[in-house]
Each structure stands twice: as structure tokens, then as C-alpha cells.
């Protein structure tokens, strides 16, 4: 077996060979899924800009005309919608991640968890392209809060929570979809419910203040606290409400534990079922 001389790669020797090997497998899987997603398309990666742009525009137009929304409504929607879209895209990609790589799963032994994780990482590339879109909307429709303020420091923590949520749920969805291919279709319905059950087109926190019971149920949906926190930081220029954020963290942790457990149990049978 060959290995590169340690002196040539000072950083790499800090990692164990297993991690180093798997990080490269992971990078290769990400490259693969990224290439196969956008190959044979005229617009390619630009599609990840077109769809959210159209969605923000249509929702804003309807709300401005028919619901007398404020001038800042596009910014209000975009700061929650773009993160929500990222979740949806991650979960859709995760659902297909194991099933779509059947030929690899059947022939090569590698940690299967890498497949949904690679799906999340591929979606990250799309999100990266959408960030300028959010910034542009924030500039054109300036929100009421001071956005470039100290609360922005919360953003990395909120995003880390977001990744925990999509990776954990992604494992669950990826494993379940091998067992029952209907999961992919069920997911679409779940995403519709989550879209309306999360504060994307409306503001929930203040209206739920008088009804603690309903608030508790509402924030059991981790998307609710998560998207609200994005909006607090990016739109209102204020730190996130602590209880919804904490509840989103708790439910995300539970979902991640469930995802890891379920995926680990199902993984042994993947090659049989594909």
C-alpha cells in the first residue's frame, strides 16, 4: 500500500487515515452528485437562482396586491423562504441519495451515511449561489431593522443548527426511502405542511404570545424556530427569540439521533433491498 510522505502533507497527518480516506471519498461523492445534477442542462446551476427568484417575486406580487403587504415584504419572505428551500432541496436529494447510488452501494463497502451527507453538501452549493439573491433583495427592499448589527453574529450558530436538522432528517428520509419508495412522495406533502406551518409568509411569534399552549405545539416544528431566527437576525436586526430557538435545537437533536439510529439499522439491508 502506498501512502504519501508525511512531510508533504503536514495537515493531513493530523487526521487518522480513515478520516482522511473518507473525507476524500466524501469529496468525490459530492463532486459526482453535483456534476450529475446539472449535466445536460442549458441553464445548469443557474436553475438554483431562477426558481427561488420566481417564487419570491410571485409571492411578493400576490401579497402586495391582494393582502396589502408592506413594501419590505419581499425581504421579509426571502430571508425565511431561501433557508426553507434549502431544507426542501436537501431532503429531496437525501431521499434519492441511497436509491440513486444503488450500483455503488451494491459493489463497494463504504460508510453509507456519506451518501445523504453528500446530498446535503451538494445542496450547499446551490444555497451559496442564492446568498447574493438574498442580499440583493435586502438591499432593494430595505427591512426595518439594522441588519448589519451585532445580532448577525448569531447567523453561524443558526446555520449550524440548520445543518444538524437537514443532516439528521436527511438520514431518516434516505434510509426510509430504500425500504419504501413512497417516502419520496410523502416528503412532498410533508414539505407543503411545513411551508405553511412555519413563519415564512407570516409572523408567528407575537401572535402566539397570548396562547402558550398553541405556541408550544407550533414550535415543536423545528423549522418554525429556525426560520424565525433567520428572520430575527437578517430582517429585524435583533437576536433570536430564545425559547423557539432552543426548541428548534432540541427537536433537531432528537431528529438527528433518530435519523442516525434508523439509518444505522436499515443500512445493513441496503444492498438486499436495492
Amino acid at each position, binding site marked *: *500500500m*502506498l*501512502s*504519501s510522505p508525511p512531510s*508533504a*502533507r503536514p495537515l493531513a497527518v493530523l487526521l487518522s487515515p480513515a478520516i*482522511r*480516506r473518507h473525507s*476524500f*471519498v466524501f*469529496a*468525490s*461523492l459530492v*463532486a*459526482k452528485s453535483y*456534476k*450529475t445534477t446539472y*449535466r*445536460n442542462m442549458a441553464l445548469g446551476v443557474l436553475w438554483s437562482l431562477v426558481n427561488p427568484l420566481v417564487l419570491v417575486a410571485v409571492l411578493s406580487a400576490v401579497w402586495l396586491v391582494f393582502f396589502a403587504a408592506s413594501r419590505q415584504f419581499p425581504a421579509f419572505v426571502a430571508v425565511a423562504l431561501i433557508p426553507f428551500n434549502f431544507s426542501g432541496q436537501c431532503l429531496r436529494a437525501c431521499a434519492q441519495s441511497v436509491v440513486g447510488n444503488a*450500483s*455503488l*452501494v*451494491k*459493489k*463497494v*463497502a*463504504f460508510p453509507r451515511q456519506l451518501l445523504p451527507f453528500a446530498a446535503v453538501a451538494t445542496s450547499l452549493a446551490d444555497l451559496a449561489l442564492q446568498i447574493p439573491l438574498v442580499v440583493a433583495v435586502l438591499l432593494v427592499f430595505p427591512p426595518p431593522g439594522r441588519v448589519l448589527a451585532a445580532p448577525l453574529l448569531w447567523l453561524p450558530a443558526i446555520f449550524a443548527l440548520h445543518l444538524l436538522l437537514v443532516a439528521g432528517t436527511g438520514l431518516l428520509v434516505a434510509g426510509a426511502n430504500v*425500504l*419504501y419508495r413512497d417516502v419520496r412522495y410523502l416528503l412532498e406533502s410533508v414539505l407543503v405542511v411545513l411551508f405553511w406551518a412555519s413563519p415564512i409568509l407570516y409572523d408567528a411569534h407575537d401572535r402566539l404570545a397570548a396562547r402558550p399552549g398553541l405556541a408550544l405545539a407550533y414550535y415543536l416544528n423545528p423549522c418554525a424556530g429556525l426560520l424565525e431566527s433567520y428572520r430575527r437576525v437578517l430582517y429585524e436586526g435583533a437576536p433570536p427569540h430564545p425559547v423557539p430557538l432552543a426548541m428548534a435545537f432540541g427537536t433537531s437533536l432528537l431528529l438527528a439521533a433518530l435519523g442516525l439510529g434508523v439509518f444505522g439499522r436499515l443500512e*445493513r*439491508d441496503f*444492498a*438486499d*433491498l436495492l
Partner: protein
Amino acid sequence: MPLAIHLAAVTKVYRVPHRRPFLARALLRGVLPRPAGEAPAAALREIDLAVERGESVGIVGANGSGKTTLLSLVAGTMHPTRGTVRVEGRVGPLLELGAGFHPDLTGYENLQLNAALLGLTRAEIRARLASIVDFAEIDEHLHAPVRTYSTGMIARAGFAVLAHVDPEILLVDEVLAVGDARFRAKCERTMEGFRARGITQLLVSHNLPLLERLCGRTIWLDGGRIRADGPPAAVLARYREEQGAAGESRIRPDRCPPPLA
């Protein structure tokens, strides 16, 4: 010699997809007729097998006798239903035709991905890629999508990666049947080289003379059990005899369709 592969009382029963407890079927139980053929088939039954490091073992058997299942268990892509599988050393992939190639990726991209999955590091791939490409003989097609490749080209590309990943245990599932005679000879030389270097090999093939040349031991699988295990000449002679007998009893000239006018 230390053991490279050790299977103890291994039984593999497939979880057959159509036998999964479908929710729709569960809800409609009693309404729909019961599906026929309830018993799940065991692909392998109580297999005990020990392969020493550096051994080259040929596996023969009729279709459906459990050859590929056995390789999948050793490759670690499948897990036994009962019994234990112990493998010591870096296992190559279960090499089959077009192993894990994605049709939309180019040959180059597929070679890179496969080499990564088989455990090469980025630096190793960079150092060996030219040699892999050279071995595969797909020069002008290297940057074309694999879906445009011929069967022989895909097989060559698959074998080329394998020849460069330094596995300690090599699993080959009937891959030497494709490719032209010249490439087959090249593959054979490579495998002889592996054997000379003390790499453990499990070779599934219907090409019996090839197994006789490349293997020091042959296993005959029949209905998920080991029917015979020993030197290739002896095992293959018995296997040929039975195959011949079975073939002759099945082919009845009087039952053949008449020649077209």
C-alpha cells in the same frame, strides 16, 4: 498462513422486495389474493469457508447457486443473516461489469470516483491516473460520457481501476468474460501478477480453463452449499461431468424447433 477470509456457518436469506410488509397490502389483507411462493429463498446455507492469505480461489456453480452473494458478503456490501464473516485486509470492490459507473459522467470522472471509493488517496490517484487510463485503452473517449462506451470499454475501465488500487483481497465476478482476446490476456497477466504478489483472490467465472490457470483451489457452489472444495483439476472435472450430464439430459434433439425454411 494467517486467514484472510473466514466464514463460519454463514446463511444468507434475501429480504425480497416484494415480500416487504407493504402498507397497501397490509391494509388490503383479505381483499387481495395471497401471493404465491411464500418461502424466502436462502442464497447461502451454512457456509464454512477459510481462505488463507495469498490463496487464489476459483468459484464455480450454476446460475443462482450463491456465487455473487458470497462475494458480496466478503466485500462487506451485504451482511449475513446468520453466522459470521471475518475479513482481514483491504478488500477491493466486487468487480463486475461497469462497477458503479455513472452513465452521465465521463470515463475520467468515473475512474477518479471509483479509485476514491476503492481507497486511493487524492495523491495516489493523481500519480496513477495516467497509468490507469493507459491500461484501460480508452484514450480518445476519456472525456466522453460513459453511456457512449461499448461493453468492452466499460469492462476495461473497471478492470483498469482494479489493477491499480492495491487490494489485499481481490474479488472478481465474471469480468474476464468480456473484452477482446488481447485485453483478456492482459487481464490474465495482471491477475497472475496479483497472485505472485501474494494477494488473496476470489474469482467467480464460468471460464473453467481460466480458473484452472489462475487458481490454486476451487469451490463448487450448488444451491447455496459448498458441494466440493479442493484442487481445481479434481473439482472442475466433477463439475464438468455433472454440467455435461445435465446439459445432455436437457437438450433433446427431437424437441428442438425445426430449422427455418
